[in-house]
């Protein structure tokens, strides 16, 4: 049976038919690879995800983590999965070869991580954060730091974390208070407390390398005075690991990702915590900024992964669960009962889940692909073009994916009825695990502000214009195909709505009414996301429609009956038909709303800001 984590056929469609990633192999950087290598790696990833990681998912959810005498234990089942993951070299997939990695294109890494996260999001936090931390050291570390930390982290021997958040400094990172005092030997003494630190402590590895944002004594306030430090749980002294005074004071009890340890960490309680500066003093935010795209894309993948697993499970359930007769036979008590996939309302939910999941997948992989094109670019203009796409799409990849991905998981529960609400089925866990994605790595509200306040403004709107131009090209191409008319029209409309709202924002931001773009940043991001995902699905429909016609022609299927027969017996035909349907459904149910969504934004409705606090409710 096909796996229940993701639709492999769709993954391959995006990689090979839409993005044509084999072309990447023509560039020097990826010349080692071939379609064959990609396929084998994907197949191997499916097996590991299904057979070893997925079985730890419910177990981790039920057992959670245990904090005993300052040490966190992860569920027993994670140890074997972690060992197999590291031994297989999966953490090294997208790490550059000169850093000891395999150097696969980022787009392929997206596909592999989607699978693993779908199998167990909480588990993937451990290797995921380790890679994130190691990447920082790779980019900004000294030779010694690379050798001492990075190598061991990439191999999975040591783990890593990102320590930004403090009680008073969540979205407002600039408010952090953790202190660093320079020692005569050039190291720093670290003191302070961090909260919500994922993988902050655990027993998967003997050491954990924390990347800690802190303020050097006398540094300016706000984000300009932040530096970043390597603070290992155990530091190396004379070739031995000694305790570095990092204490896990608590682990949070959470809605989801139970098996990911979310820790409160105290640094330097005994005045014996040493940190090693990464880069230069007060460069912390700039360094973090450079890693932001990658980290946010990673959260987008998590949103995608849970949606993907939820859709696949719901689809299977809908084919198996028998309930009620077909709608035509509603009044006949003797009519046979049918699987719920026969019911229009269930089909509507499944279709919604299908097109959203596929749209997110394409969008996320496309972002990964942009990264690869930047690396493989033949000219600076080419690199700049893809960098531009990536920069403007990242907040959408993060927010739209996590918001809509969450809704897919919620619908999966709905399809399961009462059973979906119960632990016996995995879908309620998907929903709980998925929720965190809209919160960490910059809340979705903060992402929307990044899009509206920063990305739209870059080079007088150049990023936005390039997206508009790109969608215009597709539109021109797709309009030639009359069969896609129903998809193209709502898409064209949504595109002009987005342009109009963006202009409206532009005008408002230079008048005294600049609060409007801030207030409507999130609805704007949603509108933008609708178009971005619509863009991906239309692009896919153009390809799928062509393939489907080829199959019909080959089979000489020129009547509806013959076509139906082809769809029944030819799996590729059935798949392509499903792709066109995804685009069509999305166009008519999402994009056709864009006019209303745009009007809601451009109403300039201000009650939310004008209302006195007292009037929200009487406390």
């Amino acid at each position, binding site marked *: 049976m096909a796996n229940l984590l993701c639709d492999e056929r769709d993954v391959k469609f995006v990689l090979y038919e839409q993005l044509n990633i084999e072309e990447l192999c023509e560039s020097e950087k990826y010349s080692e*690879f071939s379609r*064959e290598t990609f396929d084998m790696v994907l197949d*191997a990833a499916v097996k590991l995800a299904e057979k070893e990681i997925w079985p730890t998912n419910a177990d981790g959810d039920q057992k959670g983590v245990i904090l005993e005498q300052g040490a966190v234990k992860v569920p027993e089942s994670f140890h074997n999965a972690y060992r197999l993951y590291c031994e*297989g070299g999966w953490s090294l997939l997208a790490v550059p070869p000169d850093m000891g990695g395999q150097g696969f294109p980022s787009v392929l890494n997206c596909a592999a991580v989607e699978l693993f996260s779908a199998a167990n999001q909480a588990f993937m936090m451990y290797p995921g954060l380790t890679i994130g931390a190691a990447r920082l050291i790779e980019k900004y570390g000294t030779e010694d730091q690379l050798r001492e930390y990075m190598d061991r982290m990439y191999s999975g021997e040591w783990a890593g974390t990102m320590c930004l958040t403090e009680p008073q400094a969540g979205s407002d990172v600039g408010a952090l208070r953790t202190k660093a005092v320079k020692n005569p030997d050039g190291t720093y003494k670290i003191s302070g407390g961090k909260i919500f630190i994922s993988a902050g402590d655990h027993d998967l590895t003997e050491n954990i390398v924390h990347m800690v944002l802190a303020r050097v004594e006398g540094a300016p306030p706000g984000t300009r005075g932040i530096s970043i430090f390597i603070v290992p749980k155990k530091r190396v002294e004379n070739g031995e690991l000694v305790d570095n005074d990092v204490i896990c004071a608590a682990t949070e009890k959470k809605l989801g990702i139970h098996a990911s340890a979310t820790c409160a960490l105290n640094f330097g309680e005994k005045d014996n915590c040493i940190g090693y500066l990464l880069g230069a003093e007060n460069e912390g935010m700039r360094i973090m900024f450079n890693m932001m795209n990658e980290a946010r894309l990673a959260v987008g993948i998590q949103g995608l992964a849970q949606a993907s697993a939820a859709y696949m499970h719901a689809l299977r359930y809908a084919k198996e669960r028998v309930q009620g007769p077909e709608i035509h036979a509603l009044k006949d008590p003797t009519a046979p009962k049918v699987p719920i996939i026969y019911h229009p309302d269930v089909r509507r939910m499944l279709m919604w889940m299908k097109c959203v999941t596929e749209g997110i997948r394409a969008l996320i992989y496309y972002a990964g692909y942009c990264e690869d094109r930047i690396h493989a670019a033949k000219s600076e203009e080419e690199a700049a073009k893809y960098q531009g796409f990536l920069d403007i799409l990242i907040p959408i990849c993060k927010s739209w994916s996590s918001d809509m991905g969450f809704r897919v998981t919620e619908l999966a529960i709905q399809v399961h009825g009462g059973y979906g609400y119960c632990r016996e089925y995995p879908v309620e866990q998907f929903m709980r695990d998925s929720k965190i994605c809209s919160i960490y790595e910059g809340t979705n509200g903060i992402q929307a502000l990044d899009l509206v306040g920063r990305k739209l403004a870059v080079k007088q709107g150049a990023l936005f214009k390039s997206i508009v131009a790109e969608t215009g090209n597709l539109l021109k191409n797709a309009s030639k195909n009359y069969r896609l008319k129903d998809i193209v029209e709502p898409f064209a409309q949504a595109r002009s709505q987005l342009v109009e709202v963006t202009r409206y924002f532009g005008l408002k931001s230079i008048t005294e009414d600049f609060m409007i773009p801030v207030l409507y940043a999130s609805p704007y991001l949603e509108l933008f996301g609708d178009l971005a995902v619509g863009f991906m699905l239309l692009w896919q429909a153009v390809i799928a429609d062509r393939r489907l016609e080829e199959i019909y022609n080959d089979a000489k299927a020129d009547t509806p009956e013959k076509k139906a027969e082809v769809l029944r017996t030819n799996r590729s035909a059935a798949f392509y038909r499903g792709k066109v349907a995804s685009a069509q459904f999305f166009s008519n149910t999402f994009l056709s709303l864009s006019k209303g969504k745009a009007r809601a934004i451009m109403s300039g409705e201000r009650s939310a800001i004008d209302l006195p606090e007292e009037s929200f409710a009487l406390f």
Partner: protein
Amino acid sequence: MDIVVLVKQVPNTTEVRIDPKTGNLIREGVESIINPEDRHALEAALQIRDNTGGKVTVLSMGPPQAIDGICEALAMGADRGILLSDRIFAGADTWATSTTLGRAIRKIEQFDLVLAGRQAVDGDTAQIGPQVAEYLGIPQLTYVQKLEVREGAVIAERALEDGCEHIEAPTPVLVTVLSSLNEPRYPTVAGLIDSTRPRAPIEIWNGADLGVKAYEVGLAGSLTQVVKTFTPKGARNTQYLEGSPAAVAAQLIDALRKKEIRLGE
């Protein structure tokens, strides 16, 4: 110890669906995998090699696509892969297949142990292992669920219907294994890259390389004659017996006797 492992690419039978109309297998879109029990044979070989040294060669006969299975075996840790591929090999029954594999093993020359899965999920004959052993004129141990190697010998536990059997055999020897023997390892990413590189240690041998004649192999060299293939009809002819328990029992015995079904003494 130098080991040859026989592996076969088979359709993933857990994915094969049946066309409800024609009753035929829908093979389109079904992935190929290494025959599950062959994977266990390979794992056994890798473990022996890791402990005692030597070389593991995987040997497969099949169409050019079967190279995927060899790549995967290399990615798991095999040292060398050989694919026997030639038009004249096509349509082989177990006899012709064993002949071809046997010829190839003779050509490999240096081996102490030949390992294979008990049977392939697509053919289910369990004949290849034993026939290859006969061809080579070496002892065979089938249905092996535990395996130990000594200097110049192997000790195996064979699963029988009503128990198990411990057997020692001198090398060279052919062993077919059950899936209970071990847990196959996963291929590593680095291994997968290496195995798909142009300079990966994979050779493709054709009929000329083996020095076989077209009439010895493939369809022409096959002894099996397929008379007819059909799906058994599931239609039942139900007969209801009525009356007192004693009367029903008597009718039942008569009915069985009529069908010449022996009822014992």
